[in-house]
């Protein structure tokens, strides 16, 4: 009797806990773009399916319908546009090229492995002959594959964004805290903010080439040029939002700080940063989005390695598969841009919560 009465109580408890957990993770899931998982999880946990279906329709069915309609329109309309490279490829050809690019990557990696086997054999022979001095270990010199280009682009945008953040956040805090500083900086921000990356590129190329003489292998010149161009264009949203965030800090907080006679450093770390963080992250999110767009243009124009160069090379190749490959790149750029944005949004959500706590 006692056993029987205890069992439903614990399972009810468990269910309650499960729902709390699902509800708590809902915010995270939707930040990651997986909001449609929530109703599914609730159904799985035993909630009324009919109630959740409405939720599911909104979060999953409509987006899927949108994508489906787009694919259909693409498949129907694309073959009707004839270019000198043949018809615009539809989803099927693009998918085929995605596979081809992957195959290409695998084949190149095999070639690389073969190269190292040959090199090891050669060196083993030299050692066996007692000519250790002649042993050479050299890196493989094959072409960068599509995946390599994606990694290069991510590295470049990461570096550019990092530099931009290091410059923009302190400047933003300073101009948020000090009116005179803000007054001095504002005209410069307004002047440089609208400048296109393509205008910066020649100047950046010349300056980096002149100053960055001993290029290291990890950061070749081309990468630094693209990264600095990204920096110059993605600086502004972070700077402006940080300044705004810092300036709009609750006056009571500042007064309390004054009463407690906090040092400037403590004021910034304990008061200013926590309350400005949500806006700083809004700025960072915008900056990363701008940076990613700028990067592709910079790579294309400067012939620096990365996805932009891939697009340009394929355009120059002008083969029958070029257009499909370019569309693969366009979609990749879109998906990566979306993922980067989601990452920043997740961070923003995380810090907004802690900021309110």
């Amino acid at each position, binding site marked *: 009797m006692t056993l029987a009465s205890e069992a439903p109580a614990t399972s009810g408890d468990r269910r309650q806990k499960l729902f709390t957990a699902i509800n708590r993770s809902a915010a995270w899931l939707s930040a990651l773009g997986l909001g449609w998982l929530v109703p599914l999880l609730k159904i799985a946990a035993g909630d009324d399916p009919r109630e959740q279906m409405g939720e599911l329709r909104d979060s999953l069915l409509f987006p899927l319908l949108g994508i489906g309609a787009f694919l259909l329109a693409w498949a129907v309309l694309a073959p009707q546009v004839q270019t000198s490279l043949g018809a615009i490829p539809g989803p099927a050809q693009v998918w085929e090229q995605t596979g081809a690019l992957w195959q290409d990557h695998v084949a190149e990696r095999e070639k690389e492995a073969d190269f190292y086997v*040959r090199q090891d054999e050669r060196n083993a022979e030299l050692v*066996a002959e007692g000519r250790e001095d002649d042993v050479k270990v050299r890196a493989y010199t094959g072409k960068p594959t599509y995946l390599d280009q994606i990694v290069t682009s991510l590295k470049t945008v990461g570096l550019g964004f990092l530099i931009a953040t290091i410059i923009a956040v302190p400047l933003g805090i300073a101009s948020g805290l000090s009116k005179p500083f803000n007054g001095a900086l504002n005209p410069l921000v307004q002047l440089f903010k609208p400048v296109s990356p393509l205008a910066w590129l020649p100047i950046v190329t010349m300056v980096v080439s002149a100053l960055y003489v001993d290029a290291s292998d990890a950061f070749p010149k081309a990468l630094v040029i693209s990264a600095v161009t990204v920096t110059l264009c993605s600086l502004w949203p972070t700077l402006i939002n940080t300044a705004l965030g810092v300036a709009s800090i609750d006056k009571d907080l500042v007064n309390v700080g004054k009463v407690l006679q906090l040092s400037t450093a403590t004021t910034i770390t304990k008061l200013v940063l926590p309350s400005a963080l949500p806006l700083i992250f809004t700025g960072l999110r915008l900056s990363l989005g701008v940076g990613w767009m700028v990067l592709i243009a910079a790579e294309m124009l400067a012939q620096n390695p990365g996805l932009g160069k891939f697009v340009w*090379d394929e355009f120059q190749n002008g083969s029958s598969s070029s257009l499909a490959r370019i569309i693969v790149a366009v979609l990749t750029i879109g998906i990566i841009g979306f993922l980067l944005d989601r990452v920043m949004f997740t961070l923003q959500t995380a810090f907004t919560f802690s900021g309110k706590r």
Partner: protein
Amino acid sequence: MTATTCPTPPRHRLTPLLAGLALGLLTSTASSAAMLDVEKDELKFGFIKLTDMAPLAIAYELGYFEDEGLYVTLEPQANWKVLLDGVITGSLDGAHMLAGQPLAATIGYGTEAHIVTPFSMDLNGNGITVSNAVWELMKPHLEMDAEGKPVHPISAAALKPVIEAFDIEGRPFNLGMVFPVSTHNYELRYWLAAGGISPGYYSPEDVSGQIAADAYLSVTPPPQMPSTLEAGTIDGYAVGEPWNQAAVFKKIGVPVITDYEIWKNNPEKVFGITAEFAETNPNTTLAITKALIRAAKWLDENDNANRAEAVEILSRSEYVGADAEVIAASMTGTFEFEAGDVREVPDFNVFYRYFATYPYYSDAVWYLTQMRRWGQVAEDMPDSWYDEVAKSVYKPEIYLEAARLLVEEGHVDEADFPWDSAGYREPTAEFIDGVTYDGTKPNAYIDSLPIGLKTGDSVVGAEVVAAAN
């Protein structure tokens, strides 16, 4: 019982292994003895997406560079200027170059730098294409054979009425070529002048090359030729393959003549390095030349038997990247003019036969005479100057040393090389206009050509001023 039998099988297995190892050692000493002691083994070479970069791709893909202990990265370049600057600044160790580039750089036309070439990459391989609209206008002026196909070679005389018609409408007739000192520029000019059309002059003040021109020539990078023609910016172009055949496949233009018909077996690309690189890395230079000679041999071997495989390699996106059938159209001994008009041109691309890879002084001198003819060399130069420049840029001595090593290693035949040549080819009249070219008498040759600067002429302002006497 089991303990005693167990060790025997492994011992058996070991013996052939040891024997194999010993054999491997023997063969390896033979091959590594041949390997030169290279000063620089990690190299980066630039190229432009054209089929005549083939020796570089083949030397890489077939492991000829690796056989010489060279670790080479091949990198496509945006245009010829970027490529030349890369070699001069040292970001590239060497590159697939237009024959005119090392010469122009050495005499200081454009960016000045002493560039040398130990290896000539190929003969022929270019064509001149006009847009479909221009082709239709040219057609009434062409001579047709019994089958109703135009008689080749087509003279630029058929283009003259078209240009006159453009002129009456007040439209300039624009042609694209790839670089001011490119083979294409000189071939296009030669063809136009042979048909009575002035392609315009250069002067020290005006380097547009459009002074007193009937047709206006301007620069477009090779891979962009078809799209520029399609956009209507130019009415025709002179370019290397596969970009003439690409126009046929894309149905946007018609090739009218190949450079083989303008000058039979004309020199085309060279492999260029800085003189400084050749001096500080003599063994590396030899090793590169060896690998390239082997690649060229492979390309022409057994009556072009390897061309199909070469086409497959070149069609990869990291090399030329155009469709295999487009590249094959010219590389396998045929050339398609008007759609459907496929003609046999077995020597359209020559990489090895006819001593194609030997850097002849006479080839260099021909380009220098054309620079003088069109005003890029502003003043008269004595015959000795042509010879000196040719000898400071073209390095047959390095080439022959590399060839000698390859003969000793058994990779090539003794008969494949002109060992006793003085560096000048025999005088030839195999040009579209039949003018004889003798590389040892450049000034006399310049005076014998129609249209163009002659001895004593100079370009002042917008006109040609003849000698004062």
